[in-house]
């Protein structure tokens, strides 16, 4: 008996090792272009056609005299707004679509797949036509609304999956205990949905911050996003300055991740002291 347990243990360990190695390889694949991008941000060739020599000058330019930063701020503002709006509408929308019956439910469920399925150019042009018909000015607000449009379906898909696998009895218990629907939703349902909401935020932010085709069609004056600017730079060669900016962004994110785990560790310690106050 002891022997069998030992064998299973050993098998499990070798399986875990294989999984770790495989995951590392996949991570390497994901990070390969990033590493190339970082290396070439130090390239002394202004159009980044080939490796010419090592230089820091693009970072200097980035921090002293760069117009790229302003486009980054526009992109970030749009992505944050689009994420907040689409996650709010999408989350409560998914709840409504899963829990209630209403006449146009099938129509809405079908419509949700269209932004996923439709080629981006077509959605871009169709939204441009919509804005023009409604006489809405192109620009930041127009881009945010376009991004919300293609983010909502992803949020709903993720949240619906989450809701479908959720144990409803906890909510029922809350209602039995006298809480009304809103309180139950806010205090019971929502906390259980947190992992899904986080994935939705990730997804929406990722889709929004990198969108170029749709933004391009609905952008107006003073609303050039970073991807749109970068795409327009391809014409004259992508300067290593663009790589430098992307490198700084990655560095900030990874630093943020490290800081976050530090604060979490501290918070966790504190939380252990007052678990009671959570509910």
């Amino acid at each position: 008996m002891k022997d069998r347990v030992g064998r299973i243990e050993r098998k499990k360990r070798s399986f875990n090792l294989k999984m770790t190695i495989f995951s590392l390889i996949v991570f390497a694949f994901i990070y390969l272009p990033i590493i190339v991008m970082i290396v070439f941000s130090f390239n002394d060739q202004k159009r980044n056609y080939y490796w010419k020599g090592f230089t820091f000058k693009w970072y200097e330019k980035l921090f002293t005299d760069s117009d790229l930063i302003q486009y980054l701020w526009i992109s970030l503002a749009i992505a944050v707004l689009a994420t907040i709006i689409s996650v709010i509408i999408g989350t409560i929308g998914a709840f409504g679509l899963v829990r209630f019956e209403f006449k146009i439910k099938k129509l809405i469920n079908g419509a949700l797949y269209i932004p996923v399925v439709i080629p981006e150019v077509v959605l871009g042009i169709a939204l441009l036509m919509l804005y023009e018909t409604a006489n809405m000015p192109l620009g930041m607000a127009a881009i945010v609304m376009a991004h919300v449009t293609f983010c909502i379906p992803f949020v709903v898909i993720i949240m619906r999956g989450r809701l479908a696998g959720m144990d409803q009895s906890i909510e029922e218990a809350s209602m039995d205990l006298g809480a009304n629907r809103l309180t139950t939703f806010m205090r019971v349902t929502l906390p259980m949905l947190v992992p899904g909401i986080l994935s939705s935020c990730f997804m929406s932010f990722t889709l929004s911050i990198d969108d170029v085709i749709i933004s391009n069609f609905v952008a107006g004056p003073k609303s050039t996003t970073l991807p749109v600017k970068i795409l327009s730079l391809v014409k004259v060669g992508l300067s290593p300055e663009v790589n430098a900016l992307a490198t700084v962004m990655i560095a900030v994110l990874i630093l943020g991740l490290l800081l976050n785990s530090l604060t979490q560790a501290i918070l966790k310690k504190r939380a252990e002291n007052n678990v009671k106050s959570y509910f």
Partner: protein
Amino acid sequence: MEDTIKTKRMSWGRRNAPAIATAGPVSFWMIVFVLLPMIYVVVISFMSRNVYGGIDFTFTLANYKEMMEPLYLKVIWKSFKLAVLTTVICLLLGYPLAYYIAGKPSATAAKLIMLVMIPYWTNSLVRLYSYNLLGATNGPINNFLLKIGAIEAPLDLLYSDGIVIVGLLTAMLPFSVLPLYTSIEKLDKSLLEASKDLGANAFTTFRKVTIPLTMPGIVGCILLVFIPSLGMYYVPEALGGGKVMLIGSLIRNQFLVTKNWPFGASLAILMILMTLIMMWIYTRVASLDDLEEVF
């Protein structure tokens, strides 16, 4: 029982208040920003191009007839093949990774998921051009191989279907890991234990228990990877050396270059129908409640 009587007595507005409050905003948004523009796209797909590239508003079926030409079917078939290949590889790479991440404590898992996503917060064009830099005639790979004497002349590493698939994978992998992780993470581990206790080996457990239980994640992955890679055009154009024509580029050309919006619209509708039918067949076969309610 008491509950149903109460609902019957309430006015329509009060009875539907929870539904309106929750599903109302999303319904409104979908109707205004998706269905209205879609109606426009459907309408123009039955029109034709006028001499100056505008739309001639007379009804015709010519666009739909035209796209049944072998030429366009060939483009569609090739796009389809590349998208299927991309999706399969994404699943093969993404599933084990998602499984690995899901097996970690939740704080670590969250961080690993972040690590998967972070590269995608930089610009996708810059990432794609990294492959062009890497594989260029005088790029690092060729230079290295020349230096060690493995080759005598630089290799043509770029501008092929293969590198286009690598590009599509780069663009799509996180979108496969996320839904897979979400559903694997939800997996009730005791069921796996039970399966093992009943004598099933690891592979059988995986095939008979894990896969069916994580099907929503797999479907989500197919949805989020297959469909966008079918319509994506900037990856093939950045990496294909301008010699790979996929349906995304074809549709883009109709709208922008040829200014034949009606034909572009009808191609787009064909693409949408194709994917919806595929999803429908898929959900019938796999009988998934979640997706079934679409139809």
